[in-house]
């Protein structure tokens, strides 16, 4: 068995995601007056994600990062604008065909229903299920198991196959969710805060797995993160969002800049180079410095 079981075979030169004039708000049109601009969660976003790159989405709370991810996975529908997934209009694609191309990993798994890790990973095979009269309940086939096994090996949860998901640690749960996403054999992997609530060791683990998956399976990865340093280390490009709009998008070296971050987050930040990689690293100013910076900012 090779990791090739998890590689999607379709190959096109088109960009993975092409977003044009995207606008979205929650609720019905009637609930907001036409001129109420604050109601828009996403307004007029435009950007492109190329095949095989890791793009990080950063921005302050409420800037619309999670909504953007939900829009791209067609969990919600935009009021205006277009999203193209490998050249195809997202709105015209069926839920099933999207779920064979895009895996969406929610923030955390919380459920009162106990499932085993294997059951959970096999759920990733739902887009490929085979029903019919003799398989009313939709049992998985041998291929499904092969893929699930490979996905579990990739995220290193194979030894947990028979454990109940609610008995796992946060890091292990996150890896199970990642395995489920990989079992979909997606071309695009979308992750909402994959490292939130994880300690340093588990953060590193998840990031390494993501990087391995990206390299070996040539997957396009789009991840929302609060952790700017993590995005800087692992992403090819970073999309900075503020109030539902793109502030800038580019390689970490260009985007992680004190001026940009101060404008977006509204506070002073320090940026220096990571001692190992030389990539930009962000820290909050110390107390003394904070005052000086604030004063010099006023002058």
């Amino acid at each position, binding site marked *: 068995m090779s990791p090739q079981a998890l590689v999607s075979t379709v190959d096109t030169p088109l960009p993975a995601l092409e977003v044009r004039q995207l606008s979205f708000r929650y609720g019905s049109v009637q609930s907001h007056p036409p001129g109420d601009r604050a109601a828009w969660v996403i307004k007029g976003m435009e950007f492109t994600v190329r095949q095989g790159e890791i793009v990080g989405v950063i921005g302050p709370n409420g800037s619309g990062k999670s909504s953007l991810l939900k829009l791209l996975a067609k969990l919600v529908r935009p009021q205006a604008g277009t999203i193209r997934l490998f050249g195809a209009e997202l709105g015209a694609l069926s839920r099933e065909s999207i779920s064979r191309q895009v895996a969406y990993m929610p923030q955390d798994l919380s459920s009162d229903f106990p499932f085993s890790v*294997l059951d959970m990973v096999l759920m990733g095979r739902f887009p490929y299920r085979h029903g019919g009269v003799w398989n009313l309940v939709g049992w*998985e086939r041998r291929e499904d198991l092969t893929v699930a096994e490979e996905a579990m090996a990739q995220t290193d949860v194979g030894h947990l196959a028979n454990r109940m998901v609610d008995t796992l640690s946060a890091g292990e749960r996150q890896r199970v969710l990642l395995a489920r996403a990989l079992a979909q054999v997606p071309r695009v992997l979308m992750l909402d805060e994959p490292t939130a609530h994880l300690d340093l060791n588990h953060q590193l683990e998840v990031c390494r797995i993501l990087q391995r998956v990206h390299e070996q399976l040539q997957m396009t990865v789009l991840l929302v993160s609060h952790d700017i340093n993590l995005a800087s280390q692992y992403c090819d490009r970073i999309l900075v969002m503020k109030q539902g709009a793109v502030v800038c998008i580019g390689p970490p070296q260009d985007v992680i800049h004190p001026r940009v971050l101060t404008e977006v987050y509204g506070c002073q930040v320090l940026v220096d180079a990571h001692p190992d990689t030389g990539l930009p690293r962000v820290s909050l100013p110390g107390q003394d410095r904070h005052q000086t910076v604030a004063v010099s900012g006023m002058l």
Partner: protein
Amino acid sequence: MTVHPPPSQTTLSDPPMMASSVPLRKYEGLASWQALRARRWYAVMGLMIFVTCGAIVFCLQFGAHALTMAELWSALTFSTAGNEDVARVIIWDIRFPRILMGLFVGASLAITGAALQALVRNPLADPYVLGISSGAALGATIGLALGLGSIVGGLGLPLCAFIGGGVSIVLVYGIAASQGRLPMHQLLLAGVIVNAVCSALMMFATSILNPASLYRVVLWLMGTLNAPSMPALIGTGSCLLIAIVLLLRESQALNLLAVGEDAARSLGVDSDRVQRTVFLVSAVLTGAVVSVSGMIGFVGMVIPHLVRILCGSDHRLLLPVSALGGGILLMVADTVARTVVAPAEIPVGVITALIGGPFFIYLLMTRKYRFIA
């Protein structure tokens, strides 16, 4: 397993740690475990069907008139001479229809309970939360108040109840649905509202009933499986059969929905369609069951719970095992109801409530549940 070299150059400039330095570990016992899963399904189902048959025979033997094993055997095998044999009449004309009704009603309550719990993502939900039962109860009460109880050859009461249930289904659905979707918190709230309004109207109706009709309403509300008619048996049985097929088809989708709606949708579950299907199937089945047997509580909550503890949450197994388990529980409870104070009877709803209440309390005290849909 060997780690293949990365097929393409990484686009990251000088990654801090080579990702492939993390070794791939594989769990070898997986294939056999999967084979075991399918085999386990057949084994558990076979066992449950066997136990159900055993329970039917067991329940046939007990009742107001005690039968010996020999009498039971000869009546079951039709080996005694003469059609006027007492044992045969008792078993085939009195007990068997009633036991069958117990099986159908118990199975319906348990399978709808299991499906609804997944749908609203709350393991403590029960078929009655949808407000259908109180609609049916109101229908029955109004029917009796208007003197419709004995029309259509004694089917007047179930018919009125079914109509009442149907009206409340339309109401609950109408209140909860918005823009083609069926939000679950709204569904629960709509159920609560319809329940409350129907209860109030029913109290008003009972206050103007004559004592004889009032007695019938009260007995019916407590739940009874006494003397089911043939049309009622056939109607409930066929509703149950159709519901089982429709719900089993959605069982894997229910698994995904139970874990989270966003995730389920991203995995290709058409959640709007699944929610509508499961709601309508459950509502119609509950309406049918309530109209023939009255209010029999706790079966729909307790049984799926027990099955989940014993067999796990996979709805492909949970749904059919719950159905059989609910059937067994109600058959046995009804046998107790008609035996312990024979020749009088305890309403079977009392027995299920006496079993279910303490179980519910036990669950609340030993497990941590979130009460948010």
